[in-house]
């Protein structure tokens, strides 16, 4: 099959949706499909500054990068003004301004799509919130190529995901891929046909997360061998629930002096202020931003992961903890509730409830076997369901289903014999 992935950014740009599309592209190439990627040259969605070259081949994926209009202060102001006006009036006149302000605006990409789309069996648009989805969708419709979209919507952020053209893309696409069951429910709530919305999940590569000796990892990080280490992994921002986790730790530390709170992730003004308030607090180890190797050490060195975040669309960090056999504590939100099975591979706690986190931690402190068992259960779950290979199974299946559906409706050509997916049989 020949597939075109259209995304706002592609690695080396950092981000969850960037990683998602890159892993997926590489996995599909490994299965014998031809995958090309159209994206911007940017590494930073704040500015859309052109920093990367026009073309490269990454692990078999052809990546074409197009120049985009810079997002200057003026463009940001247009975005804020139009969003404000749009939600006040619900008038579709403001949508072009939102598109302009959101970016990345790549006329070259649009032209290239119009010219080259007939070569592809299917277009997969990634990350609904950015403008490339709107004109990518338009081009695909003009050239009558089936469209699949992975919107990465957050159920709680309708302000960003409820713009008219975004809903048009969702409703008009041939298939929509949700990352969690919670997101699928949200999309169905928008009136999408359940037949056309599938949950694919998110995945990681197990080989990138080897199990390491816990003692050696603790030695390298300077942590006591006999401590109970609770890990917070992520950007140290308010919405990730850092304050709540810290509060739970402080309350529990009084009765459990061997407790350690290990924080890993880029620091922010918020976290500096937070830790300044608790200056000299024993048991807190803040490593800040670290290399992948140290991150892996931290995951292996801890006893459990705590991330009571308010804004996780999926929470891939839970998978990272599980894959090294650690149980997790996560928020009881729509999205995360469908990832963590409460009481089986972790605990779900109400938002902003340090008491509940403390209770959950106490159960593991008093019964390390329970913690190990839940971690192991999580590991099994990741291996069976949340690997890149599994996600590619689902997405590949969606592509074929979409092509069949489009052919039934007369909107897709027959894929060429060489590209019908049998390559993957031989490659396995």
């Amino acid at each position, binding site marked *: 099959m020949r597939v075109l992935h259209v995304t706002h950014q592609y690695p080396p740009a950092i981000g969850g949706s960037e990683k998602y599309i890159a892993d997926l592209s590489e996995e599909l190439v490994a299965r014998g499909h031809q995958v090309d990627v159209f994206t911007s040259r940017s590494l930073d969605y704040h500015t859309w500054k052109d920093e990367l070259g026009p073309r490269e081949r990454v692990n078999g994926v052809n990546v074409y990068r197009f120049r985009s209009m810079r997002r200057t202060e003026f463009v940001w102001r247009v975005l804020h003004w139009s969003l404000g006006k749009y939600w006040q009036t619900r008038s579709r006149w403001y949508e072009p301004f939102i598109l302009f302000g959101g970016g990345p605006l790549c006329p070259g990409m649009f032209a290239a799509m119009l010219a080259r789309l007939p070569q592809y069996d299917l277009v997969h648009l990634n990350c609904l919130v950015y403008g490339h989805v709107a004109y990518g969708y338009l081009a695909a419709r003009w050239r009558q190529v089936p469209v699949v979209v992975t919107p990465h919507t957050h159920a709680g952020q309708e302000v960003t995901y409820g713009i008219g053209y975004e809903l048009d893309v969702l409703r008009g696409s041939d298939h929509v891929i949700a990352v969690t069951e919670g997101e699928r429910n949200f999309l169905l709530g928008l009136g999408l046909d359940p037949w056309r919305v599938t949950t694919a999940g998110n995945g990681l590569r197990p080989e990138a997360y080897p199990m390491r000796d816990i003692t050696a990892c603790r030695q390298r990080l300077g942590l006591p061998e006999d401590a109970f280490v609770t890990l917070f992994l992520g950007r140290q921002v308010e919405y990730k629930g850092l304050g709540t986790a810290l509060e739970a730790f402080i309350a529990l530390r009084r009765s459990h002096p061997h407790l350690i709170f290990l924080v890993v992730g880029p620091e922010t003004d918020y976290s500096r202020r937070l830790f300044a308030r608790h200056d000299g607090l024993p048991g807190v180890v803040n490593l800040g931003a670290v290399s992948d190797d140290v991150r892996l050490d931290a995951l292996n060195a801890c006893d459990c992961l705590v991330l009571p975040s308010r804004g996780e669309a999926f929470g891939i960090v839970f998978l990272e903890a599980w894959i090294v056999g650690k149980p997790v504590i996560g928020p009881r939100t729509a999205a995360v509730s469908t990832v963590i099975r409460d009481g089986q591979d972790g605990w779900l706690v109400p938002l902003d409830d340090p008491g509940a986190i403390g209770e959950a931690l106490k159960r593991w402190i008093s019964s390390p076997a329970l913690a190990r068992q839940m971690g192991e259960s999580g590991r099994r779950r990741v291996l069976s369901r949340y690997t890149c290979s*599994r996600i590619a*199974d689902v997405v590949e299946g969606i592509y074929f*289903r979409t092509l069949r559906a489009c052919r*039934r409706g007369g909107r897709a050509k027959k894929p060429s014999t060489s590209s019908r*997916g049998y390559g993957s*049989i031989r490659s396995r």
Partner: protein
Amino acid sequence: MKVSLINLNLVAEDAIGTCIINQVHFFRRRGDDVHVYVLHPPHNVPTDIEEVTSVVTLRELIEGQEEHFRLSDLYIYHYPGRHALMESIRGIDRGTVIFYYHNVTPPELWGSDIGRDALMRDIEGSALVHYADLCITPSPFNKQDLVDRLGYAPDRICVLPLAVALEQFTPGDRDPKLVQRYELEGQQVLLFVGRMAGNKRIDILIEALARVKSQIPNTKLLLVGDDRSNPAFRPIVADARARAAELGIARDVIWTGRVDELPPYFRLADVYVTASLHEGFGQPLVEAMACGVPVVAARAGAMPWVLGDAGLLCEPGSADDLAEKVLTVLRDTGLRQTLIERGLERVQAFSLERYEANLAEIVEKAVTHTLPEIPPEPVVEAGREAEIQPAAEAGEEAQTQPAPVIPRDELVLSILSDEIMAQSDIALRGYVVRSRVPLLGPFIAWVRRNLTSHLREPYLDPMIERQVALNRRMAEWMQRAIALWTASIQRQAELEARVEALEAQIEALSH
């Protein structure tokens, strides 16, 4: 409609083979053109089924050498485990694809290292379900397995219990020949039917037999099923035999191997027992109930659901609990009778008629590409077995259906409905194009007649199909409206009659 059924093999005696044969008959009766594709030659199947069965390789399927397969409108892939033909599911670029999931034994329950890798592959291979438009599976247990393990959307999975030939599996007397052959005269017989795989836990049945015999000495265990075709079974059977000898009950455990005709064996039994730790459905349970044999089964897999409150459940892995439940059934004739009666009612949910009605609904929705409503499942909650309810209540729940709205004049309604449905289909040969715009109707008719197929297929036919779909929906709405209208007229008449009666009553009272 052209239908292709795909499976590893076609063996008349096994559950999947029976299921495929039922499906062939079902599609034939509908007037569909059905064909079965298997990797291994069919075994023991009727001639009419053999005629429509082809032994093929994956290459033959994917290279389009099988014309029927290439041009099918509906593909049903049976998944008993990963087999080569399954891979063709990836390349189906037309029609509708259904994945029929029969469950796979978890390798950790297999009880032998032989074949464990194959089971791992079978488990892995079930991810092929993602290539299907829809999945059918025989029990909610399997459905949950797909949802938990693969994240498959629950609303794409239809639970369709397997059909059992209730006309063959009926209560009856013991066959004297079998009684003589196995020396069962005056014996209480515990029966198990199934292959002797590790997950079936034959060892627990033998332990339980020893405990039962300590209370009721004249008891025998009859093990019916394949014990040698798979090398993995041999050590399990050998260990079980050794354990029986150790317990001094070797003569009381009878191994029959595979048998041709099952019903006489069920009729030999006083109790059907199983300690299996994993069953995707458990067809022998239904067959036992149909033969009027009370069932004691482990609370595992789909068995609690299949039994409902028509059998006793025991703790998985516990020979003591199993023996205790068996003794209860053997001693308490009232309970035994209750279980038999409930079983006989329960099996009606697994009749061929019900299976076909539900399959028809699923197929109809699948080919029109709307998500099917899950057909009614014969659900009785698991765990209710401990509190045995009076026999009269059993099965009533499953039988209860909302009363349909009966229109006053059904004949008029049905004629009207048929007419609307007929008119809705503009793709039909006799359809006349009507338009108020001058010349447009004749022009469309001319285009339809004369446009060459390479232009008509991609451009005109999809438009017509969409229009037909819309018309049908409209026709359905109109039918519903007519039904409501006639029902309301009937209700109005009833109310008017009631008002008149009340007025008469008031008048009589006032006088």
